[in-house]
């Protein structure tokens, strides 16, 4: 993941959330199940990182659309621009990144150039993210329950008791046993899979319409990975949640996505169903990725 530190980014997000003014508390998110076509529309997006004077392009001419409730996979190798795209959508690009051109529309509204306060209002409430490493995403010295409730405190005009209830509901939703007890646990007392579920509860606490996931299962054991992917898939269909999941793991994407986009050197080079992209890839890069993927001698039942 290079020099980008998800922990720092979340830290910044927290500080911003904590300093918000009361005016940001007013608007509740639109109805969760509203099926608005064209939830997210990215058009001709180009982002570059300033590196010692000359900007290094990270993504170029990326155009994609995501409908409400749709599960989309973003396949690509490290350094291909997946994380940059997700952070651009979220409005959390690091300071040395520049959006060169293009547009990101959320429910028809342009996000590029929106004041930071407006972006904050969307982030966590309507568009949420889960990062790869839950150990970095959680504050080690705070109990996990309050870290989930914090999201509700930042976005909902309601008292502490309601926020706590929302957090407990979110912890139950992601399949954590005994949320009342777990609310008071510290991150180090949980397993890797449980920690990633807590991060997922944070992301879902305010009922976002779009969940971005950046290699959400890459740091987990294979059995835990399968459990978390099954959970994501069931939440996605049950809550009508749109998901954009970036991964280099074809198996993880095949378990969740109905549509897969392939990203290579900062550009989208192929799109199709998992069967098309993994089974009969057209672009040389997709073909190389599919060929390199280890397939066991006898395929197990599909996840």
């Amino acid at each position, binding site marked *: 993941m290079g020099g980008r530190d998800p922990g720092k980014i979340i830290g910044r997000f927290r500080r911003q959330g904590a300093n918000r003014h009361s005016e940001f508390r007013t608007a509740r998110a639109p109805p969760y199940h509203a099926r608005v076509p064209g939830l997210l529309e990215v058009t001709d997006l180009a982002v570059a990182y300033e590196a010692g004077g000359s900007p290094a392009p990270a993504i170029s001419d990326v155009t994609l659309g995501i409908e409400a409730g749709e599960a989309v996979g973003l396949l690509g*190798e*490290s350094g291909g621009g997946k994380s940059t795209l997700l952070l651009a959508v979220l409005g959390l690009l690091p300071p040395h990144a520049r959006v060169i051109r293009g547009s990101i529309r959320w429910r028809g509204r342009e996000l590029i150039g929106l004041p930071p306060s407006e972006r904050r209002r969307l982030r966590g409430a309507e568009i949420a993210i889960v990062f790869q490493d839950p150990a970095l995403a959680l504050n080690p010295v705070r109990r996990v329950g309050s870290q989930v409730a914090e999201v509700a405190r930042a976005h909902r005009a309601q008292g502490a008791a309601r926020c706590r209830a929302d957090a407990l509901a979110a912890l139950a939703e992601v399949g954590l046993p005994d949320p009342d007890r777990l609310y008071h646990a510290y991150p180090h007392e949980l397993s*890797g899979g449980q920690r990633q579920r807590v991060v997922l509860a944070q992301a879902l606490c305010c009922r976002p319409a779009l969940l971005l996931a950046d290699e959400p299962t890459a740091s987990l*054991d*294979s*059995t*835990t*990975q*399968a459990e978390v*992917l099954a959970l994501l898939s069931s939440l996605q269909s049950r809550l009508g949640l749109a998901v954009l999941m970036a991964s*280099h*793991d*074809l*198996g*993880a994407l*095949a*378990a969740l996505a109905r549509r897969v986009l392939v990203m290579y050197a900062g550009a989208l080079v192929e799109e199709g169903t*998992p*069967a098309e992209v*993994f*089974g*009969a*890839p*057209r672009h040389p890069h997709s*073909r*190389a*990725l*599919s*060929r*390199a*993927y*280890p*397939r*066991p*001698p*006898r*395929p*197990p*039942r*599909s*996840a």
Partner: protein
Amino acid sequence: MSDEPLVTIRGLTKRYRRRAAASSAPVEALAGVDLTIERGRVLALVGESGSGKSTLARCLVRLEEPTSGEIHYEGTEVCSLRGEALRAFRERVQLLFQDSAAALSPRLTASEIVSEPLEILGRGDAAQRRRRALELMETVGLSSAEADRRPLDLSGGQRQRLAIARALALKPRLLILDEAFAGLDASIQAQVAAVLQDLRRREGLTYLCISHDLALMSVFADEVAILFEGRIVERAEAARLFAAPAHFHTRALVAAVLSVPPLAEATATS
């Protein structure tokens, strides 16, 4: 070449004392492991975090002292080796770690890293060592252009190949790959695996490959042993393991393997 296994492990047990609570029972990381490693083969040791995989690797190269049990390498009891005999043994068995960025000194150049073991043991002069380092780098597909670069200027795949070249410097017979593929993209994994398979055929090496990734091991290894709660619960060829997993933990691991549509090679060009 004899039919006797290269390594025979019997009843290997390792207990760790817990740090804080003096009263509580020790953690049993290995609970009587019996395992043989045959010459020239790739044996995968698959298990989840905490199953004891890395403890086994560390006991095997004598970075840990086992609580009880025996390890025989070419008929020699390893656990009782001392001094010169232990040093000679360690030349024969090399360990490759997961995170090559952490395992290689960031301050040395690639060729210095590969020749360092030779230097420590006083083999050859500086020019000979550099020549040997370049040869070794070439066998893992690193050109002389990379020789004077430092680890952090190399890609993850190049770094892991550099770590392999270093491990080969002392001409070991057994390479222990401890999660050596973790953290690499699938195409880089395939590239590193191809280098390792090629080396094994040419040099007659034996691999013990430790991993949590059953799918990858099923294509890389000749045989797979499943480690669960400090014991080997099952050992078989990958095809057999997937067709008829016997132990419940193997069944769980097989069920957790994510399926990907098969690649229709007809559409692919070579």
